[in-house]
């Protein structure tokens, strides 16, 4: 869609960003003759393809396999160093082979099993929501995580267009966010979250969390039904309940291992049903994306898109692909091979809400110049994909015990929520009463 078409036809852009799944883990089945049989999608056609074999520490070859959805014994490795190992550069071939996922898993967790979970692929029977969306809307099979690292740098890239972090350790550094950009441009925006929002980890966002910009997911149907066109937000970020948060409003549903996909499938179905049933859906763009691949195998090498910041944070490629789907009336049924990442959403926001030709930021423009397209390039003003679709209920909504390896994110959430109570006391406890139990327990 052109900027003019965007301005004339799109009122609302909705972004749902889940956690830690690779394209092949979630949507690789689409290519397989036994399941999706879609030759247009770059997924897994043959589990026995010799090119997919990953060696383990014993030198054994491990191929992808069909994995039944469910909880894992632990998280999977996805720090910057581990992602580098997973992508496995072959100097002779001068390219990444994507054959180090099993080695990274075994090295990180002292586990050596016949079917390493990092090589597991889900099928549509495990994905009652995602499989329907993939069948009816636009599957993006060249949507990459922004940088080859973990959650924090990738969410910073996604929501700021830049990252001052190389890896996930603790609280987020103070950076200009998309919230600032939207405020500066007078765009109505809102976060609806099923739990504490991710950017609670950025200290100066804490005070924003107490404003009407941040609301609970259960407020969404009411707001959708009652707000007029001048109140209803133009940009909406919808966040799951994060597994790593120490305080939960509801069971976690972010798809981050050790969590299975079923809770996230229910969450996405709930969000889709709410939005798609509204007349506002007809002028909306809905993006279901992920922050990064989470340690799961993907067979497509990253794009050579470099990133540098002034403090020395440097990446030479994107990360592995993520299973992103674009839905709504302007999303064609099919597949897009355009080179995209989560900063493609920031480009779209700039085209829709910026002044003529304005970029979101210099960093995002730099990615565009390196070949990362705007999300607008895959939207079609004439798609007319207006039907609302229904989903089955996930068979296995189980929540595993606490993650096996305490993560940097857990510590960061813990610190951030204590800071929220410390700085805002009554206000924080009124808006988030769940924090009372958290403070008392501490």
């Amino acid at each position, binding site marked *: 869609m052109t900027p003019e078409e965007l301005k004339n036809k799109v009122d609302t852009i909705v972004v749902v960003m889940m956690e830690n799944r690779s394209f092949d883990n979630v949507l690789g089945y689409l290519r397989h003759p036994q399941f999706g049989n879609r030759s247009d999608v770059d997924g897994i056609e043959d589990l026995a393809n010799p090119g997919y074999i990953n060696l383990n520490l014993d030198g054994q070859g491990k191929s992808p396999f069909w994995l039944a959805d469910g909880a894992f*014994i*632990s998280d999977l490795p996805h720090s910057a160093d581990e992602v580098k190992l997973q992508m496995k550069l072959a100097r002779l071939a001068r390219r990444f082979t994507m054959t180090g996922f099993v080695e990274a898993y075994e090295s990180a967790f002292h586990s050596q099993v016949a079917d390493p979970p990092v090589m597991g692929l889900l099928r549509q029977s495990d994905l009652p929501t995602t499989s329907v969306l993939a069948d009816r809307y636009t599957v993006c099979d060249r949507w990459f995580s922004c940088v080859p690292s973990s959650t924090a740098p990738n969410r910073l890239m996604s929501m700021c267009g830049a990252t001052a972090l190389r890896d996930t350790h603790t609280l987020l550094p103070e950076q200009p966010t998309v919230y600032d950009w939207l405020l500066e441009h007078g765009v109505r925006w809102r976060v609806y979250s099923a739990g504490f929002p991710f950017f609670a980890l950025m200290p100066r966002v804490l005070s924003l969390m107490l404003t009407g910009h941040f609301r609970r997911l259960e407020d969404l149907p009411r707001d959708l039904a009652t707000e007029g066109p001048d109140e209803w937000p133009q940009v909406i970020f919808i966040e799951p309940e994060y597994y790593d948060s120490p305080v939960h409003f509801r069971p976690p549903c972010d798809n981050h291992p050790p969590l299975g996909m079923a809770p996230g499938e229910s969450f996405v179905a709930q969000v889709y049903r709410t939005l798609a049933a509204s007349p506002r859906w007809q002028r909306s763009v809905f993006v279901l994306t992920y922050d990064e691949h989470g340690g799961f195998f993907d067979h497509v090498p990253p794009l050579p898109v470099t990133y540098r910041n002034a403090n020395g944070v440097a990446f030479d490629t994107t990360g592995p692909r993520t299973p992103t789907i674009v839905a709504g009336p302007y999303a064609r049924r099919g597949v897009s091979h355009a080179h995209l990442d989560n900063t493609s959403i920031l480009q779209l926001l700039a085209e829709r809400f910026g002044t003529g030709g304005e970029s979101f930021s210099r960093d995002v423009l730099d990615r565009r110049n390196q070949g990362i397209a705007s999300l607008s390039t895959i939207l079609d003003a004439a798609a007319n994909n207006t039907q609302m679709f229904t989903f089955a209920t996930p068979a296995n909504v189980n929540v595993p015990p606490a993650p096996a390896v305490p993560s940097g994110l857990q510590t960061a959430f813990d610190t951030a929520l204590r800071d929220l109570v410390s700085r805002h006391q009554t206000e924080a406890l009124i808006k988030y009463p769940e924090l009372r139990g958290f403070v008392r327990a501490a």
Partner: protein
Amino acid sequence: MAGQGMVRIWPWLVAASCSACCHPKIAKLEATPRHVCPGERVELVWEFSGSGTMTVTPSTASAPAGHVADRGTASIQPMAPTRVELRVTRTFGAPTGAQLDIEMAQGESVAASIADDSAACSAGVVSSTAHLRNFAPDLAVALVGMQPGDSRAGYDVTHVDARTHQPVTAHVAPAAPTDRFAGMPIGGDWVISSPLAAGESCDPPSLPNNLVVVAYTNCGDGEGDQR
């Protein structure tokens, strides 16, 4: 107010003092060898910080079960593929776990990665080396063939006999497995080379990720090693 202050201060102290030292941590869980014939002896070694329980499934005589010391060894003789699971908890931090499968595979993908330091490409031939470790010495090769569906023309394969240190070389082609390696231990290095296929080149490099053959194994007299 003082009480509220304590509420805020204590978690910080606890978190700061325990973040590094009080979480459960597994330093080692190993099985040697991990690829065996039925009944063969496997040495388990573990080391962790915290309180640990071990399960061996299916259990065998002398297999650890339940609470185990924070470092230890055990000798087991599994008769079937076996999973060893170690779960560790500690006063602070989430529980952690590790799993090992003791395998008795009869067909093993021997994959030489193009990312291996030994990989080379010249004169229209690409080669690399697979390094199979932790296989029992009496897990012997029966046949070596190509993986079903592999579209390459064939492979030249060299494997060093761990007993005689003599290299043995053979060619495998589609539907033409070789028994030249019969009786040799599967463990050790396998040098695999193949002519470049259509669309492949050394320079500019356009090479496959892996060169793969399948080694089918047996356990000698089939009775297993009861030593």
